[in-house]
C-alpha cells in the first residue's frame, strides 16, 4: 500500500483496518468546516464533546467533556475547507486507550447544492474495539441534522457527553 508518511514519523500503530463513513449534507464546505472545527458547534452533535485546537498543521487537538478527556491527537494535514487529517487516540475508557493511535481523515467535496462528507477512520488494528469507530454514524447523523435543520438529535445518547452551561465545571461522575 502506498502511503505518504515521508516524515518518518508514524504516530499510529500501523493497523490495517479501515472504516469509511459517508454522508451528504445540504450546506457549503465553509459551514461544514466550521461545524467540524468550532468548539461550540461541535458540542451540539458528536455526543456533545467539545473540540479545542489551533487548527494549524502539526497542532494538537483535544476532545473533552468538561475536565474529562475523550480523545486527542495531532492535526497532520489542515486544508480548509476541504480536508483534515488527524491522528486519533481515544481516551474515554482504559479499553479504548489501549487501542493506541489511529487516523481520521475528513474529506469535504461539494456536490451541486450539497457536500459529500467522507470520514475515513483507518490505521485501526485488526479486530479493533468497535467503540473506537462505532460512534461515527451517530456523529454524522447529528451533524447533518444540525446543519440542515438547526436542531440537535433527540436520539438517546446522542449528546451523552454534553454539559449544561450552568454545570460546565461539574465533575465527570455527575454527568450521567
Amino acid at each position, binding site marked *: *500500500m502506498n502511503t505518504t508518511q515521508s516524515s518518518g514519523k508514524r504516530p499510529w500503530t500501523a493497523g490495517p*483496518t*479501515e*472504516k*469509511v*463513513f*459517508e*454522508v*451528504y449534507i445540504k450546506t457549503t464546505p465553509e459551514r461544514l468546516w466550521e461545524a467540524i472545527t468550532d468548539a461550540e458547534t461541535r458540542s451540539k452533535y458528536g455526543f456533545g464533546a467539545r473540540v479545542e485546537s489551533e487548527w494549524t498543521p502539526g497542532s494538537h487537538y483535544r476532545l473533552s467533556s468538561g475536565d474529562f478527556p475523550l480523545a486527542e491527537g495531532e492535526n497532520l494535514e489542515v486544508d480548509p475547507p476541504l480536508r483534515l487529517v488527524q491522528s486519533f487516540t481515544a481516551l474515554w475508557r482504559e479499553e479504548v486507550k489501549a487501542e493506541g493511535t489511529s487516523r481520521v481523515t475528513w474529506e469535504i467535496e461539494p456536490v451541486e447544492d450539497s457536500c459529500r462528507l*467522507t470520514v475515513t477512520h483507518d490505521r485501526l488494528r485488526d479486530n479493533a474495539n468497535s467503540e473506537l469507530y462505532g460512534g*461515527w*454514524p*451517530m456523529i*454524522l*447523523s*447529528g451533524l*447533518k*441534522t444540525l446543519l440542515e435543520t438547526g436542531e440537535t*438529535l*433527540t*436520539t*438517546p*445518547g*446522542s449528546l*451523552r457527553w454534553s454539559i449544561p452551561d450552568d454545570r460546565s465545571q461539574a465533575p*465527570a*461522575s455527575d*454527568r*450521567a
Partner: protein
Amino acid sequence: MDTIFKALADPTRRDLLDELFAEDGQTLSALERRLPMTRFGVMKHLKVLEQAGLVTTRRRGREKLHFLNPVPIRLIHDRWVSKYAEPWAATLSELKTRLEEEPR
C-alpha cells in the same frame, strides 16, 4: 430514503452488507466467492447498495474495494426508529450508561 429502504428490502443485499460488516473493504471477487450467485448478480446488487449510499468504494491499485457505509441506516434510525422506540430506549440507554460508568 426510498432508495435505502428498497436496497434493504432484498435478502441478498442484506447478506452483502453482513459480509462487509464482518470484513470491510472486500473486492467483487471476494464477495462473489461468499455468495451463491454469479458475478453479474453480485455486481448488480452492489450497484443498488452503492446508489443507496450503503456501500462506498475505494480504488487500491488495480482493485476496487467495497466498504459498508452505516450512516444511512443511522439516519433512518434517528429519523424513524428512535422516535417510536424512545421511551424504552432512553431508559435502557441511561441504565447502560450508568452501569458502565460506575467503575470510574
